[in-house]
C-alpha cells in the first residue's frame, strides 16, 4: 500500500527487508524449512563437540585388528567405514563443509550478480550490452562439466570449489536481477527522484536496491542450494577436498570401495542429510518466489 503521510514508521521503511521474512513465516512449508536450516547451522557450529572420534582415526577391535565395516554400536553410533573410520563423526563434520561452501559461495554470488545486474539494468546502453554479452558467454558454459574441468585443473580443495561455484552461478542471478532493475528504473518516482537532482548512487541505493532486494534474496537462497549440490556432486565424483569429510566424499568412498550395497549405515546418513538440507532451502526459496510473483499466490 502506498503511504501518503509524511511520517513512515520504521516498520514500513524497512519493509523491503522484513517483507521476504514475513513471507517465509507465513508459509508453513517454508517455516519448517527455516527451522531445519537453523538446526543444521547449530550442528555445524558445534560439530567439533558433537563428533565422538577424530574423523580419520582408524578404530581397532579389542584384539587389535582394524574394526572395519562395523554396523552401529554404542561406541560407533553410525558404524565404521571400510577403513575403520567413525561414520558418525565424519557425518557431523560434513555439516560444516556443506554450510561453509553453501553460505560463502552464495554470499559471493549474491554480491557479484547484484553488482552486475544493477549496473547493467540501471545504466543500460553500451554498459548493458557489454555486460550482457559477457553473461551470454558465461551462460553457454556447461555447469557441471566446467566445475569438473576447473577443479580437476586447479586441484581439489574447498577454496577452489567455492571459486568455481561463484564463477558458475553469478550469471543467472545477474540476468534475473537485471530484468527486475529494468522495471524499477522506469517507475515514475525514480524518474522524479532523478529530475529532482538525486545522484545515481542515491537512486541506486535508496530506490533500486531495496526494491530488487527480494529478487536478490530469492537468488541467494537458491544459490546456497546450488552450491551445496555442486560441492556434493564434485566430491562424489572424487574431486572433493581430500583433507575434509563432506557428505559427497563419504558417499564417494563408500561407492568407490564397493560397499554401497551392504553398508547402509555408511550411505544413508549423508544421503538423508543432503536431501533434507537442499529440500529445506528449496522450500524457503519457493516462499520467496510466491512473494515475488503475486500471480502465483492465487488470491486474485
Amino acid at each position: 500500500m502506498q503511504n501518503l503521510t509524511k511520517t513512515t514508521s520504521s516498520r514500513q521503511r524497512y519493509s523491503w527487508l522484513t517483507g521476504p521474512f514475513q513471507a517465509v513465516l507465513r508459509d508453513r512449508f517454508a517455516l519448517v524449512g527455516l527451522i531445519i536450516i537453523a538446526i543444521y547451522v547449530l550442528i555445524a557450529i558445534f560439530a567439533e563437540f558433537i563428533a565422538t572420534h577424530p574423523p580419520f582415526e582408524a578404530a581397532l577391535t579389542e584384539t587389535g585388528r582394524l574394526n572395519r565395516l562395523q554396523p552401529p554400536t554404542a561406541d560407533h553410533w553410525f558404524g565404521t567405514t571400510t577403513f575403520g573410520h567413525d561414520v558418525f563423526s565424519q557425518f557431523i563434520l560434513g555439516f560444516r563443509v556443506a554450510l561453509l561452501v553453501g553460505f560463502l559461495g552464495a554470499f559471493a554470488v549474491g554480491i557479484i550478480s547484484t553488482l552486475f545486474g544493477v549496473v547493467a539494468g540501471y545504466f543500460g546502453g553500451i554498459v548493458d550490452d557489454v555486460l550482457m554479452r559477457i553473461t551470454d558467454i558465461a551462460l553457454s558454459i556447461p555447469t557441471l562439466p566446467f566445475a569438473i574441468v576447473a577443479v580437476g585443473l586447479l586441484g581439489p580443495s574447498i577454496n577452489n570449489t567455492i571459486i568455481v561455484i561463484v564463477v558458475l552461478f553469478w550469471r543467472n542471478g545477474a540476468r534475473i536481477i537485471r530484468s527486475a532493475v529494468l522495471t524499477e528504473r522506469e517507475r515514475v518516482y525514480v524518474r522524479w527522484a532523478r529530475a529532482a537532482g538525486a545522484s545515481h548512487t542515491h537512486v541506486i541505493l535508496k530506490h533500486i536496491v531495496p526494491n530488487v532486494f527480494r529478487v536478490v534474496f530469492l537468488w541467494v537462497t537458491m544459490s546456497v542450494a546450488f552450491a551445496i549440490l555442486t560441492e556434493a556432486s564434485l566430491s562424489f565424483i572424487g574431486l572433493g577436498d581430500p583433507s575434509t569429510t563432506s557428505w559427497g566424499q563419504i558417499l564417494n568412498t563408500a561407492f568407490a570401495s564397493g560397499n554401497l550395497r551392504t553398508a547402509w549405515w555408511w550411505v544413508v546418513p549423508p544421503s538423508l542429510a543432503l536431501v533434507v538440507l537442499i529440500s529445506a532451502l528449496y522450500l524457503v526459496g519457493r516462499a520467496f518466489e510466491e512473494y515475488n510473483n503475486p500471480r502465483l499466490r492465487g488470491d486474485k
Partner: protein
Amino acid sequence: MRAYIIRRLIQSILVIFAVTTIMFFMFRIVPADPTAMMVERGMSEEARQALLERWGLTGSLWDQYLRYIGGLVVGDFGDSFFYRQPVWDVLVPRIVNSLWIALPGLLLGALIGSGLGMIVGWSRRGGVIERSGVLGATIIRGTPSFILGIALLAIFSSWLGWLPGFGMGDSHGKEGWARFLQVEFFIHLILPVLAVIIYFLPENLLLMRSGVVENKHEDYIELVRAKGVSEKRVAWHAGRNSLLPLITWLFPALAETIAGIVVIEIVFSWPGIGRELVLAVTRQDFPLAQAAFFLMAVMIVLANLAADLAYGKLDPRVVYK
C-alpha cells in the same frame, strides 16, 4: 525475421569462439606441465620432441592456439593422449550412448512431469493434492542425482535383484545398431533412464503447475467455463497455454541433460560423454577433455538458439526486431 536469425547465428558463433578460447587457455596455463601425462620417463630428447610435435604442443602458446582453432574449424580435435587415437573417434560413440539415456529420460520426464503438474496446478489451493504434490516435487528436486542413482541401485539392483545397474551389458560381439538392439542392452538401460526421468520430473511438474496457477484466473478461462464445457476441458485450456515455456525449456534442457547427467553416468558406469570427461580429467588427457567440453558448450549454444527461434514461431505475441 531473416535478419534476426542471421544476427543470432553470428552471435552464437562468437559465443562458441569465446568459450573455446577461454577453455584452451585454461587447459594450457593452469596445469604445471600439460605434457607430463604422455611423456614417458627415460625418453630421449628427440623422441620427446617428436611426440610433442605430434600432439601440437610445440611452439609458443599463441602458435598452439592458432593451430588448435584451425584444427577445430576443419573438425580436427587432435588425438587423445590416453587412447592414442583421434578424439573424434573416441567421443562419437560416447555421445550416442549418452543420448540413449538422455533423450528418453528427458522426454518421459517432461511428459509425466507436466501431466502431474497440470493436475497439481488445477487442484484446490491448499488441498491435499496441491500440498503433497508441491512438497513431493520439492523433495525429489532437492535430491542430488547421485543419491537418486544410489537409491535406485539399492532398491532394484541389490535388494530386489531385478535389474542390473552397471554398464551397458555384453555386446555379444555386435557393432553399430545391432549392438543396441539387444534385450540385454534395454535391460541395462532401464535404471539409468529411470534416474533421468525422476531427475527431470519435479522441475517440469513445478513449471507446469506455476503456469496453470497463473493462467487459471484469466478471463479467457472464465469464458471457456461459461461455454459450459466440462471442467477437464477447461483445465486443458489453461494447461495448453502453460506449455509454451515448457517447450522452449525442452531444447536447452536436452543440452543441459547431456552435460548434467555426468553423475548419473558415473553411478551406473554408463560409458557416456560425461563419464568420459571425468575420466579424461583424472587421466590428464587434455585433448579429450577439451573436446568433450567443447561439444557440450556447442550443444548448449545451439539449443538456446533453437529455443529462441521456436518461441517466436509458437507465440504470436513475439515480434523479431
